[in-house]
């Protein structure tokens, strides 16, 4: 079966409910490109996830264009991971965070030697931000700076 056409589906839903059409981001320019320079087994990997993940003890995300980010230590106990997001069914993510925040998966691959190491922290945010401008001007540069400070070789991005 073909992949779900979410943009068309949401357009129909919003029209039916009388909401204004949602403005999806359409990039007009080709994406930038940075060549991979090291084998995975020698690389320091940075994880970024937008499923609203926070760790117990941190302030949770709010749902009104929260542009904050959270730093999750790479050795965080999985049982202390939480989610706060308004736009997806969090049932499975709250039962096993690895479905939107693959921290155990990545830790195991490091232990196996498949991945060199993880950055000291993973970085998370709540991806339901309706202002593309605020993502471009606030969230994206903040995350980019964290990855640069962490001196990662590659970045794995996990949206929901």
């Amino acid at each position: 079966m073909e992949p779900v056409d979410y943009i068309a589906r949401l357009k129909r839903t919003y029209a039916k409910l009388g909401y204004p059409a949602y403005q999806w981001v359409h990039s007009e320019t080709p994406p930038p490109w940075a060549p991979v320079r090291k084998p995975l087994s020698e690389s320091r990997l940075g994880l970024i996830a937008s499923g609203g993940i926070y760790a117990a003890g941190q302030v949770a995300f709010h749902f009104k264009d929260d542009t904050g980010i959270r730093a999750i230590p790479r050795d965080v106990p999985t049982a202390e991971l939480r989610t706060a997001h308004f736009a997806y069914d969090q049932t499975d993510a709250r039962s096993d965070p690895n479905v939107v925040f693959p921290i155990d998966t990545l830790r195991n691959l490091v232990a196996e030697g498949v991945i060199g190491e993880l950055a000291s922290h993973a970085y998370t945010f709540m991806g339901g931000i309706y202002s593309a401008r605020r993502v471009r001007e606030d969230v994206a540069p903040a995350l980019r700076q964290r990855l640069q400070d962490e001196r990662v070789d590659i970045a794995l991005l996990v949206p929901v």
Partner: protein
Amino acid sequence: MGLVAREVEAAGIPTLSMTSALDITRAVNPPRAAFLDYPLGHTTGKPHEPALQRAIMLEALDAFTSLREPGQVKHLPFRWDEDERWKHGMAGTDTRTERFDTPQYQCEEDRLKAAALEPGDCPVCGLEDL
């Protein structure tokens, strides 16, 4: 997240964006993507299936080197189930939660823990000192 991918890649760090919404990913067009045809909320696998989660991640990570052109998407060889009934329905109803402007804790215990943060504590890391 595609905007984040572009920002990070432009700074010289190769990125791989996982996705379960192919059309949204194609619209924002990140440098490299790996598409898993699963219901939203399962970008990296099914719950409590670590062997499957590992297999998905290995196929995805392969895209760091197998994708050679900007904007390519690797389709990961996994299906949620045989009949893919999850792809039907859903249209016409709004399942989102109200967009509250205060922190939305998963449980009351988390709210109490976070309330113990001091005004000077870092909101990014919480109790953790970076």
